[in-house]
């Protein structure tokens, strides 16, 4: 077995080959990680994300473009709001952190806002780690880290993450801050959006915990993050503490379950490449060489979803109607199999799933026949 360093180098080399020559790697962000953790069985997504392939470009090249995009109105407003929250050395942000999370501590005044600029992601990660160490050791004061950079090991390759901010409390503990531009109306925000923000923050918490474990003082990473949103219909900031213990546990478990990218890479045929320069047929072939596990939830999370959906349709898989559908159909996984079983043309009548299907089909046909004789019964 080669020494680890060589292996790592070999893997990096292999992933660069998969990405294609001259193609810049696309960094994994927390949103992508949260989506990946939501569908840990998808090897296709794991290897493409691991290799830093730009899936949106790939989807275009495959002829099934993704529909993700951000309106410039939302973008401008989001940035303006974040700038407003962090204005004046983060006075408002720290006031909210003090009020919502740590009332017992000294009110923040003259907080430190260390400069975190450095060269490249590795440099920024190191700079962030240093700033965190200094802030934790100089306890007794508040410190705000604006756009720090954290590294998290995902399925054998590092992902660089950039939270909106991290606050170091006077007691030396750390809090993730997430700034979002959806409104908090009368103290409540859209639960779906809060859920997404919590999943994203959970990834940051995990990354911070890895940093904390390397420090001697082993500071505590708080499991209640600070979600900052505009209040009602204004753009004045308001905040709420969000408990992400559950999301953190789920994400940690899913990330651990992610098939090792190395193993997936080893199963690919020699010469596989996902470069968007390649003709569509070769790309399709390359993409098809890694199995995907498509479900309708992918449509809102993955750029390749439309491609995978077409494939899933072509194969007649039942999961494209939703994951729960599959649960009640037992071992029957394709539309053809299920319908044949329901019509009594195939399947073992002693199989409970088949028996239930036949009863359902008979009841449905009976109901349709009694309701409207002119409606033809189910074929």
């Amino acid at each position, binding site marked *: 077995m080669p020494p680890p360093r060589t292996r790592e180098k070999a893997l990096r080399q292999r992933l660069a080959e998969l990405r294609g020559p001259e193609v810049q790697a696309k960094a994994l962000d927390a949103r992508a990680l949260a989506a990946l953790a939501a569908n840990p069985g998808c090897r296709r997504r794991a290897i493409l994300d691991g290799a830093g392939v730009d899936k949106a470009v790939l989807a275009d090249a495959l002829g099934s473009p993704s529909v993700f995009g951000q309106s410039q*109105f939302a973008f401008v407003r989001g940035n303006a709001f974040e700038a407003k929250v962090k204005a004046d050395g983060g006075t408002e942000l720290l006031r909210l952190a003090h009020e919502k999370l740590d009332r017992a501590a000294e009110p923040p005044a003259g907080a430190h806002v260390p400069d975190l600029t450095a060269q490249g992601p590795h440099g920024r990660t190191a700079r962030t780690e240093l700033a965190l160490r200094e802030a934790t050791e100089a306890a007794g004061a508040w410190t705000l880290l604006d756009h720090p950079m954290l590294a998290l090991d995902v399925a054998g390759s590092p992902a660089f993450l950039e939270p909106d901010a991290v606050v170091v409390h006077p007691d030396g503990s750390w809090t993730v801050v997430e700034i979002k531009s959806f409104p908090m109306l*009368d103290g409540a925000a859209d639960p779906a959006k809060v859920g997404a923000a919590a999943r994203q923050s959970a990834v940051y918490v995990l990354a911070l915990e890895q940093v904390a474990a390397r420090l001697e003082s082993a500071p505590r990473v708080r499991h209640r993050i600070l979600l900052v949103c505009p209040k009602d219909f204004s753009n004045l900031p308001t905040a709420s503490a969000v408990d992400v213990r559950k999301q953190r546990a789920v994400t940690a478990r899913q990330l651990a379950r992610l098939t090792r990218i190395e193993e997936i890479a080893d199963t690919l045929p020699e010469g596989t490449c996902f470069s968007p320069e390649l003709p569509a047929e070769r790309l399709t072939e390359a993409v098809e060489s890694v199995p995907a596990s498509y479900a309708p939830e992918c449509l809102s999370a993955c750029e390749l979803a439309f491609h995978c959906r077409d494939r899933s349709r072509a194969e007649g898989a039942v999961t494209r109607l*939703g994951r729960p*559908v599959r649960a*009640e159909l037992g071992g029957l996984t394709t539309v053809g199999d299920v319908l044949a079983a329901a019509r009594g043309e195939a399947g073992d009548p002693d199989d409970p799933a088949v028996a239930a299907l036949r009863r359902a089909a008979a009841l449905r046909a009976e109901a349709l026949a009694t309701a409207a004789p002119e409606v033809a019964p189910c074929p």
Partner: protein
Amino acid sequence: MSLIATLARLEAVSTGRAQPAATVRHRHLSERPLVFVPLITAGEAGAPLGALVGTDRDAPRLLAVPQPRDRDLRFAFLAELADVVLPYLDGFADAVEAAERSETDPETGKRVKVEVELCADAPQLIVPSRAGIDLVRLLGRSTRFRRTAEQDPEAPFPAPPRVPLLGRWLTHFGERARVPGSSLLLAMSDVLARHWATGQSSLEDQHLGALLAWIDPPGGRSGAQAAREAELARDADGQLVCPPAGPATDPAFDNKLLAPAIERYDRARTAFAAAEDGLEADDRLGALTAAEREIRALVESRTRPTWDAVWRGLDLLAELPEGVRVEERWTRDRWSFTGHRDRVLAGEPPQPRRDDAVTAANKLATREREQARLEAQEALDDPLVMAARRLSGEAFAGEVVDVVMAYSESRRPSPRPLVTVRTDDRPHLGERARAYRSLGGKPQTAEFVGYEAGPEGGLLVLRVLDKMGRGKEPEEGSVPEKGDRLCFTLFEHEPRGGAKLPDPEETPWTHGGPPGEEAVPEPADPVTEEDVL
């Protein structure tokens, strides 16, 4: 999703067309609904960009906000919307019929019948999608606390006169939409998905264009193909051929078409404001009007396809016969409308930001009761829904094979006939479980006695308990006869609510205690420089 619904979806996949998920229509459709197709600006909290609204499918009223961040323009939009919505609502407020309601007499504490007014019909608002319902609620919240210049001459940025009233009505519609089975405010995609099973997932069903493509594919194409086009097809400009039903717009539209148009409008407006003499101002006003017209055209181009889709959906739904018990639920909607009309007339303050404990508990109890009622009524109205209940063992249908007369053992024996039913269904019947059948629209109760030849034989013996009259001999037609085909349910046909809640004065301290003195009207949202609504 029941197995029957899954099967319907799979059949839709193999036939390429949506399959019926209901054999009757389970929601009331007004003869004159008000359709509302709104668009909002991305990133802002419910900042309207425009809307199509109206009751005439050929002549919708187009409303547009050329600069969504401008407070005055936004108020102008809301005032215009109020001019369409409020007269429509008023049209239903005056035609009333006499009805009775039981109330507690404040002096004697007894329940007495009171004669009250009930509006003969109620308005109906239709939006394209579930997100549209959320927007109705959000617009209601953002406007109902606004002060007009008349209410408060000191108020900064006073709202146009009828806007707060519009907010109260929109809030009422939004709240009512949370009651299961109500039809005051409907989302077209939800109603269509209730009645048809498509060959795609319920997530994808939320796209109105794709949903309609499955139900009624145009030009002999398959539903799958048509749905894919509705979702993804773009024109040469990169714009979606079938724009999203909103209220959110497609980012490509925002970035490529809308943003430049708004910028041109802003520039024209600045130029107009800077004009130095009348002649120049005239010229620049022309440019400003042109820029505004351009934005109006853009808004119309994105809302008109959805507008047409909503009306097409209404046509499709109108083809289904209305369920028998839909009328009864609509009467509840009429009560709801009448009640809010009375509250507005009585000068009550707008709905509070947060409900107090008593109101919240009442709302939850209502929703639970209505959910149970809806489930029972849909099953009774629709054999296809009943089939799902039969499959899950909550109902059974079969033929009466034997009826034996029997009597109760009291001093005045009453008829308690024993009915044997042969069924292929497998209901979950416990000892002495109750089963109900519909007899002339009223539920008749029976009690499970036992299996005649073991649980596998499919022969059930039931004892009929009521609805047979007062005499010793049961009334004609009240007892099943041999050869009848009957359907019994294990759930009640008219579910009762939970225990009655205490009067507001009796509210326990755990729930905030009795209400204090006269409630103070809630203040308007404070207005800030950057306030967006």
